[in-house]
């Protein structure tokens, strides 16, 4: 048989029997695609065998069906816990993708021939285990990092990517790519093989298994009647040399021995952003949009115009952002990039050359000026699309059903829209479904938020008491679609997936405040079962809870739910005993926790406030009497933080648990001469933190304060001044004026003239004496 065609392209020995055409690639390489198409057009194969999961089946064909817009990805996942995934992303310029498209156009058989994902996922698990045994220190060598850096260094390139692009992506002469990549990867393989066998036997074995399986699949294709010379085998360049049919291929018995897990696969739209941030797979993807531009230029036969196109689009982006860069700068940037390429004997500038030229010419030397424009040109916002009818995951289906049921479909748009929800029952409609429409919508949106699907953002409602009102901003994006597909791993429906996520969080939760939040979230997500689990988790954690502030926060959280839980039609009864238990512990811990320094006091005050509010809201369920008693004790004690004692006393005043006499007595006692200034003033600071009007209306209090200040010596006076100033710092001007007038009355000064005097700016002398206070030595304060 005459074989004129493949002799042109093959470099295999003439004597050997006919062999398939092997084409080694780097994933996501435009030049790889370009040369592959040339080979396919020349060979006109009847079968194309591609490195990829062989169980993809129909999905492989769907990848190139009408309406699919890359980037898209094949996602394989185990359908049992713990979920493991494998991702195979494709851009338009992926050689694998172009091969599939060519096969579709030319009615050629195309097939993935790598291990099925059920096996590779199972093997991935096993490989992970014994990794630790490898001697440390030699690891980086194995990863090839050192080797790649060395290659870049020897070739005088700034990094390996630049080396690769200069030497492989820019050459469009026939067959150059195929031959050089084959030679290159054979050399690389022989350089690293021994090390790999020694340092990472698992990796080495895994590759061996894959290659032997792929050889088996090639044999199968030949058995099916494809002539070897009419078969093109497309694989990562690293594997090409190992796919020769002279090597033994996997037997049935060997195949049967391989471990398996149950796995599923789906298609998902992908984005260039994700492609650029997943550096693990393939290479050449730091700048997906740049490589797409390169691919388009190649197809148009105008690769030479790439630098000009790229740089002018960077300049255009900068202009959009309001930074003007002239066409002359673009021309100079192209010239500089060309000069950089020439210095490396390159045919044309690499991405790195272009970026550097842009930094110099557009950024005036500063990368930060051009960084955003570069990112938008390099990565872009391109997002893949799958048409309806193409394989969808159960969660995608479920979400679409839910959106339809809740009349939210129109919000599935790229334009943000507002949605106001009223969670109360709508009594004017007939069916229960529509009566609680908004409530159900809220549940769905909360679930999506819990799943990390960025479809709806909850806005804070100004009127904080109106718990029946919610304000959402809804905006669909393909990123959200991707996130939806990703949640398939967590459950078959939105509800199940949410339950899974919350349950996982619950298992990891070690803190009562977190547990309480989870109760609230599962309530919002309409998941009573998870709520029950969270409640018992809280119960368990509550036994050991020892932080006063944590307890107060939790009691508050529970109290809010008890008040408003009914609106969500959730049974909150089980929460009551936990709240009682925690409240009791909180009350009893108050004294001990109040023995703290001023830094900790701020958090304590917040906590006391929360507990006090809860005691007032739930006076029927909680032991409010005990709480007041504890507050009284704290207010009377001299050995606790003075600020907290003051604060406790102010609550007593507010609750009318302390009368005028008692107040006068306490003020006199706290502010009596001889009490250290910081303690006296600190106490006053505490008492002034609540209910200012109650303070302002009690003139005896101010008289006491006045007498106290008058009794101080110079040094203690300065000391107390600082504390008092801080205490009054949070008063509003109106309140300050009221105090000033009150003091004026006390001193017998006419209120108006005192007010006027206070409004005058400070003179130099006064300023100086105030400045002196700044230098005042507070010792250990």
């Amino acid at each position, binding site marked *: 048989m005459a074989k004129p065609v493949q002799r042109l392209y093959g470099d295999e020995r003439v004597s050997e029997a006919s062999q398939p055409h092997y084409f080694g690639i780097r994933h996501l390489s435009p030049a790889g695609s370009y040369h592959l198409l040339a080979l396919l057009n020349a060979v006109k194969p009847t079968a194309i065998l591609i490195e990829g999961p062989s169980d993809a089946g129909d999905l492989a064909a769907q990848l190139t069906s009408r309406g699919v817009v890359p980037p898209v990805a094949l996602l394989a996942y185990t359908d049992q816990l713990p979920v493991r995934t494998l991702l195979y992303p494709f851009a338009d310029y992926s050689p694998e993708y172009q091969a599939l498209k060519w096969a579709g156009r030319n009615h050629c058989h195309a097939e993935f021939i790598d291990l099925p994902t059920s096996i590779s996922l199972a093997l991935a698990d096993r490989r992970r285990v014994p990794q630790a045994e490898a001697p440390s220190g030699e690891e980086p060598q194995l990863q090839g990092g050192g080797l790649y850096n060395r290659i870049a260094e020897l070739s005088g390139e*700034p990094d390996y990517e630049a080396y690769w692009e200069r030497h492989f992506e820019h050459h469009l002469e026939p067959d150059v790519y195929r031959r050089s990549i084959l030679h290159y990867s054979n050399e690389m393989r022989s350089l690293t093989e021994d090390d790999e066998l020694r340092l990472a036997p698992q990796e080495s074995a895994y590759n061996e298994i894959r290659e032997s399986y792929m050889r088996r699949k090639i044999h199968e294709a030949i058995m099916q009647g494809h002539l070897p010379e009419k078969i093109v085998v497309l694989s990562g360049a690293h594997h090409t040399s190992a796919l020769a049919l002279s090597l033994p291929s996997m037997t049935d018995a060997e195949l049967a021995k391989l471990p398996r897990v149950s796995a599923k696969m789906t298609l998902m739209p992908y984005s260039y952003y994700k492609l650029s941030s997943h550096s693990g797979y393939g290479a050449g993807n730091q700048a997906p949009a740049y490589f797409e531009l390169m691919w388009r230029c190649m197809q148009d036969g105008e690769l030479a115009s790439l630098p000009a196109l790229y740089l002018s689009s960077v300049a255009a982006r900068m202009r959009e952002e309001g930074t003007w860069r*002239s066409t*002359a*700068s673009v021309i*100079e940037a192209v*010239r*500089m990039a*060309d*000069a*950089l390429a*020439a*210095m490396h004997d390159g045919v044309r500038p690499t991405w790195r050359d272009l970026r*550097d*030229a842009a930094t*110099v*010419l557009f950024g*005036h*030397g*500063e990368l930060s000026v051009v960084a955003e424009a570069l990112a938008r040109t390099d990565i872009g916002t391109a997002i893949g699309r799958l048409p309806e009818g193409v394989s969808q995951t159960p969660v995608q289906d479920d979400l679409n059903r839910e959106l339809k049921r809740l009349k939210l479909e129109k919000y599935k748009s790229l334009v943000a829209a507002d949605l106001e929800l009223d969670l109360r029952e709508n009594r004017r409609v007939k069916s229960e479904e529509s009566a609680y429409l908004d409530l159900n919508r809220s549940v769905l949106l909360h679930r999506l938020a819990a799943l990390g699907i960025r479809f709806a953002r909850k806005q804070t409602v100004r009127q904080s008491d109106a718990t029946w009102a919610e304000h959402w901003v809804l905006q669909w994006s393909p990123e959200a679609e991707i996130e939806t597909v990703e949640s398939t791993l967590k459950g078959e429906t939105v509800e199940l997936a949410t339950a899974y996520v919350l349950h996982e969080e619950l298992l990891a939760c070690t803190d009562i405040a977190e547990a309480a939040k989870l109760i609230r979230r599962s309530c919002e997500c309409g998941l009573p079962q998870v709520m029950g689990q969270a409640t018992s988790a809280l119960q368990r954690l509550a036994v050991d809870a020892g932080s006063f502030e944590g307890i107060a926060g939790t009691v508050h959280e529970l109290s809010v739910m008890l008040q408003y839980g009914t609106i969500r039609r959730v049974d909150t009864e089980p929460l009551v005993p936990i709240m009682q238990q925690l409240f009791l512990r909180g009350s009893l811990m108050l004294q001990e926790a109040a023995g703290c320094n001023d830094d900790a006091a701020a958090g304590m005050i917040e906590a006391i406030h929360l507990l006090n509010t809860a005691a007032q809201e739930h006076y029927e369920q909680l032991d409010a009497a005990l709480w007041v008693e504890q507050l009284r004790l704290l207010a009377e004690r001299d050995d606790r933080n003075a600020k907290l004692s003051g604060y406790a006393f102010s609550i007593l005043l507010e609750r009318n648990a302390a009368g005028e006499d008692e107040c006068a007595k306490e003020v006199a006692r706290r502010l009596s001469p001889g009490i250290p200034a910081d303690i006296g003033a600190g106490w006053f600071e505490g008492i002034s933190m609540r209910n200012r009007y109650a303070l302002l209306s009690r003139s005896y209090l101010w008289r006491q304060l006045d007498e106290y200040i008058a009794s101080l010596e110079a040094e203690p006076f300065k000391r107390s001044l600082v504390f008092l100033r801080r205490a009054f710092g949070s008063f509003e001007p109106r309140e300050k004026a009221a105090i000033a007038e009150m003091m004026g009355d006390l001193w017998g000064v006419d209120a108006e003239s005192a007010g006027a005097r206070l409004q005058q700016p400070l003179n130099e002398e006064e300023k100086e004496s105030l400045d002196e206070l700044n230098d005042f030595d507070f010792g250990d304060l």
Partner: protein
Amino acid sequence: MGMDQKQNVLRLSAEKLYAHELEALREADKAAEKPAGWQLSPRAVLTFITGGQAGETVITPKYIGNKRLVEMAIATLLTDRALLLIGEPGTAKSWLSENLTAAIHGDSSKVVQGTAGTSEEHVRYSWNYALLLAQGPSDQALIRSPILRAMEGGGIARFEEISRCASEVQDALISILSEKTISIPELGREVSAERGFSIIATANTRDRGVNEMSAALKRRFNILVLPAPSSIETEIDIVRRRVGEISASYELRASQPDEEAIRKVVTIFRELRSGVTLDGKEKVKSPSGVISTAEAISLLTGSMALAGSFGSGELTDEDVAAGLQGAIVKDDVKDQQVWKEYLDNIMKKRGSSWRSLYSACTEMNG
């Protein structure tokens, strides 16, 4: 003037200092294609700056740490564009500019020093007034600026500290850079630049805002920002190399500082410069003055001079301390305070290897 006499000048220009390296590069580079007006190929220029081998001769690296930046500088000059090097004081702007010029053009002496007093005549041309009065405008009476001379010879002129000049002087450059001509109306002619003409200017980031460069002028330059040495090892390397070169040319009769002394000085400088200790754990106050790599170099050579002239010839901690005192405490009482705090809070706790330097510094700081 003979060659021997020239060896005795205070500071040799780059093309003299590295004459044998340039010669070796020229020899090795004979066959390579050279851009018009260049004496070396771009690649040989790169080797001259970043180091390597030319035949048998070892080429010492002149600029360490960022090879890509040097490539970008050479690529700029390849495209006939003017180059502007911007950086903090002591980031080797002038050093890079001088060496690039020496390698490409072989003559780094065509320099305009930018000061507040620089006038447009320094940039374009002026007249020998005696001759001008006697003969009227003539070629003999014309005093060419370094830039004009570079244009006529197709060479590279250097413009140091461009941002120190008044803006009208800077503006004079705009037409030169865009038209590549200087017209001399008095003689009724125009000087057009020969191929190979370019300008390498330097500007100091600390001067920003003194005479901010106009957008029009900036557009005519390719601007490169030279970073401060990125790692302590790079900086130590730079300091050691330069100290070695300087002490050889100044014939300082003192032994080279050992690795340990250089490391200490560079550590102190980096910490004071960044305001935080190398391990990132403690904050440090920065002094008011500039704490550049160049300062570290001159500090060490200064200390060597002290040791050589007044001491034993061995660099002692006292010599280094004297240098540190001078470099860090410039004129301010506050600097003295900053230095004292650094000594007591950081250096004192560094253990025995720092002890004697600490005592010497404390004594010096009073």
